[in-house]
């Protein structure tokens, strides 16, 4: 083919780009490693706060609050902890800024605000005469105890934003000092005596350093050290109030490290790089770069595991209890299964599919915090201290990893069918084998996983099988894959059918995994419920159905000729 010389030059070029980005990555990574300890002037980040049922660093608290109000963890490039602190110092300035994220068009229409905008001033929203009407409307809905539809969920968020902002601004929500009696920490607004005086010192030091930044000057070493020193003094005073209740410093530091280093991000960057290397190796049909790919993916994998371990340590439980955590877990599983199958078959594209899914999953997890809440939250009573829960969730979701892999491989298969069935006959055969194996692995985990779910339900509620929607959809997915494997066994489903079913049957998994919580929103698994992203997920599913239809029609026509 005449394509070859051209593609070779492209490959050489892309290899250089790859090497360069690798260098960049190493630089970035090592600079991050150096920043594992807090920079000067950032002691405020590590100040323990009590919020949402646990003690956490001020940094985490600030990120969560800014996320809720603004939808992001930074505001105009400034760190959340600085922003949140200034809400308390100058709330009236902040109500004039476009800080409040409102995405629901109906809510905006009812407030007579521009629906195409996304961020609004506090004054526009809460000073609006309609705001109180909407709150009343929400309250009536709540009284009726009916399920909240997206409009009311959006209203609820708006009310929450209002509440949180005013509570932070008035100092009532930032709880910094453990009480002598009881468990609820004292908020900034309730501080008295030495503690109040020392907090004033912290504030002064903060103002002087933030003042320098706003004038465009760098914060001087003295200013930064002064701030750290005052924060430290405050911390000692707070601890002295009730040393037993005060936060464990190691845990706080670990959480700061988790926030700042964010191992999951590095993991997906490595996965992307790894995917490019494999793509390069695959197109050029060379096996040498594969070892580089293994190294990159291996590093990513280690960081992925490291992130898991950090989360487990911080929460004292395996991280598989909400949507975000399962996405991270499934991404991890896909890579593991891909690596195992790759070791057996050495097809290259299996690992490619695995690394693409892993990267895709991790990017989704990282970029949709409203839908997939990454914050560390305490568990509902029913989920606490339960061995079977962990085992059943991990087993079921790891089967999703295998099905996800079959799905990605199915996509690749479809592309080959488009590129020419006869020409790529061998590659298609290989892909089909990999899809078959991935589906089998999935079934081997899903069936026992569902049974383990039954054991958990039996253990916790005395009901082995109660038709809970989450379990039921897992069963439906299992039945779907079982039907396909049986169909394959008797030869109804041929190669093309395996590729197509790899893609289509995954819709059942999406329904079980995401749809039950976000579309159905019913049942015992309601602790994992959320809202949002439905349009993207259904778009994703719909596009794949279209692709399948297109390839099927295309194939019919070409075969008919």
């Amino acid at each position, binding site marked *: 083919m005449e394509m070859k010389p051209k593609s070779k030059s492209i490959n050489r070029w892309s290899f250089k780009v790859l090497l360069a980005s690798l260098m960049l990555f190493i630089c970035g990574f090592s600079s991050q490693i150096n920043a594992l300890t807090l920079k000067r002037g950032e002691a405020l980040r590590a100040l323990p706060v009590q919020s949402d*049922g646990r003690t956490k660093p001020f940094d985490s608290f600030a990120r969560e609050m800014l996320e809720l109000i603004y939808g992001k963890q930074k505001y105009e490039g400034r760190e959340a902890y600085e922003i949140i602190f200034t809400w308390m110092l100058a709330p009236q300035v902040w109500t004039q800024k476009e800080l409040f994220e409102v995405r629901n068009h109906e809510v905006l229409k009812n407030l007579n605000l521009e629906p195409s905008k996304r961020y609004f001033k506090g004054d526009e929203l809460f000073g609006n005469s309609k705001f109180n009407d909407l709150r009343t409307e929400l309250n009536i809905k709540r009284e009726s105890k009916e399920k909240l539809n997206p409009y009311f969920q959006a209203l609820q968020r708006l009310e929450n934003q209002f509440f949180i902002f005013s509570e932070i601004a008035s100092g009532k929500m930032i709880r910094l000092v453990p009480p002598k009696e009881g468990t609820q920490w004292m908020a900034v607004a309730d501080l008295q005596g030495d503690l109040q005086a020392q907090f004033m010192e912290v504030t002064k030091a903060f103002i002087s350093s933030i003042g320098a930044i706003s004038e465009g000057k760098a914060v001087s070493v003295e200013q930064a050290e002064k701030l750290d020193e005052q924060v430290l003094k405050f911390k000692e005073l707070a601890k002295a109030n009730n040393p037993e209740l005060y936060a464990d410093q190691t845990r706080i530091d670990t959480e700061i490290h988790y926030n700042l280093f964010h191992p999951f991000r590095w993991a997906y960057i490595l996965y992307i790089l790894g995917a490019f290397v494999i793509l390069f190796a695959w197109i050029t049909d060379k096996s040498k770069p594969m070892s580089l790919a293994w190294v990159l993916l291996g590093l990513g994998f280690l960081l992925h595991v490291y992130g898991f371990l950090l989360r487990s340590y911080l929460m004292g439980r395996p991280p598989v209890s909400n949507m975000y955590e399962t996405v991270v877990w499934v991404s991890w599983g896909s890579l593991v299964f891909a690596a195992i199958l790759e070791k057996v078959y050495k097809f290259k594209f299996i690992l490619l599919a695995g690394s693409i899914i892993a990267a895709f999953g991790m990017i989704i997890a990282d970029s949709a915090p409203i839908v997939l809440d990454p914050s560390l939250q305490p568990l509902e009573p*029913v989920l606490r201290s339960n061995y079977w829960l962990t085992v059943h969730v991990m087993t079921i979701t790891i089967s999703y990893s295998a099905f996800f892999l079959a799905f990605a491989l199915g996509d690749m298969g479809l592309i080959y069918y488009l590129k020419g069935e006869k020409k790529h006959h061998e590659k298609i055969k290989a892909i089909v084998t990999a899809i078959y194996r991935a589906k089998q692995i999935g079934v081997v985990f899903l069936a026992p996983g569902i049974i383990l779910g039954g054991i958990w339900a039996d253990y916790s509620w005395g009901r082995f099988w109660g038709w809970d929607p989450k379990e*039921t959809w897992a069963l439906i997915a299992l039945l779907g894959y079982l039907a396909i494997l049986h169909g394959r066994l008797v030869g109804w489903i041929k190669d093309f059918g395996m590729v197509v079913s790899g893609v289509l049957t995954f819709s059942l998994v999406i329904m079980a995994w995401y749809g039950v919580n976000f579309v159905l929103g019913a049942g015992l698994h309601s602790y994992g419920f959320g809202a949002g992203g439905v349009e993207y997920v259904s778009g994703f599913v719909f596009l794949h159905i279209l692709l399948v239809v297109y390839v099927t029609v295309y194939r019919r026509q070409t075969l008919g000729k």
Partner: protein
Amino acid sequence: MFKIDYKKTLKFLASIKMAVIVIASIAILTAIGTFVEAKYDATAAKKLVYDSIYMNIIMVVFAINLTAVMVDRWPWKIRHIPFICAHIGILILMLGQFLTSKIGVDGTLRVEIGGQSRLVQLPQTDLILYSSFDGNNYTKIIEREVDFFRNPPTVEKPMVLLPDQADIKIKNHYRYALASKEIQASDNKKLGAGVRIQITNGQANFIEWIVQRNPYTKANVDLGPLKVHLGLLPESGKGLNEIYLQAMDNGKIKYMLFDKSSLDPKFTGELEEGKSMATGWMGLELRILRFFPQAQENWKIEKRDFPTPLTSEALEVEYKGKSQWILLNDTVKFFTDNAVYFLTYANRRMDLGFNVQLKNFIVDKYQGTMRAMAYKSQVQIEGYGEHEISMNEPLKYQGLTIYQASFQDGPMGNPVASIFSINKDPGRWLKYLGSLIMTLGIILLFYFKKMGIGQKKGS
């Protein structure tokens, strides 16, 4: 003559075609079930889909298919082991589930803090009719299991009780009704009194009706720190903060107020509609907003399309041309010239055979929040001593398992009762056995493939 070809029939029943059809049907039906649950609730999904005749038929066909496919492979060889395990496992699992649904117990037990109970509420519903000639002693004359959720009575096809004597027509059923009580004055001397009280101190404000079933019974409302009774005045107090009200023939109400310090009344006196009295606790004042010497309770019913935690099932009952509504676990009375009928529509109750006493109920909260971290009930079981039941830590006794299910909040926002789920599962061991065999089968399937045992294409 048409003759059944057994071999051909077996071949079809054992075919993968059949299996795929059955698997797909189960998948579709259960998927519908999840949507029904999302739209309505778990009960609706269960009654309309999962326990429906369609589901049962598919399950029977599935069982036949699983059995036939194994019979078809007879005589079995070593390579069949994983296949046999996987399929027999599913059969055993289904048998276990069948046993559970037929002879298992799955009910709820509600025990008030400090109180005790032995009656478990089951999901089945019964219609029970009692009659009485003196208003005190009732005899059960009808007890009938009904499933109005699935087979509701209608105006055209009502359910008639005692057509010759009482002719009570049940003519309408709402699955989801929002009910509010309507209390009216009546001149029927067999009815008890009704008062609408208000208890307020400027901050707290509590308004409630108290209605006696008949002139001889007591009715009360419990506000936690204070109890208000309507009925005959007692001889002496119980050492609690209580107010007793008694309706008089002259249209007035006699009252007696007790407090913790003494068994003798602290105050006594008379009240009438619109008048109030100071209670002496926390500045609370009790006012009589409304007083009917004979009060008739009626439900005002609004039909809803979807359930909420506030809705309930409701039945419309007609007696002597007059209609009234009755909710689930509620009763209604009908008067003839010389008798009283008492109709209840209620969940079946099962006697545990022992009392469960709730000594204490503890909710642990996450630090500094109202979020529950764990709940625990300290119970005293007759003949079994004191135990703690908490989420995920059930108690087993006499073949029953008692689980902590949830709790009930009182009007003041603090828990007043613990709710347990009571289970007896005779199919449990079969389900575990079936699961084990099936899982083994699936794993062996892989293992055999890898070892090259049982490589067989098609059937």
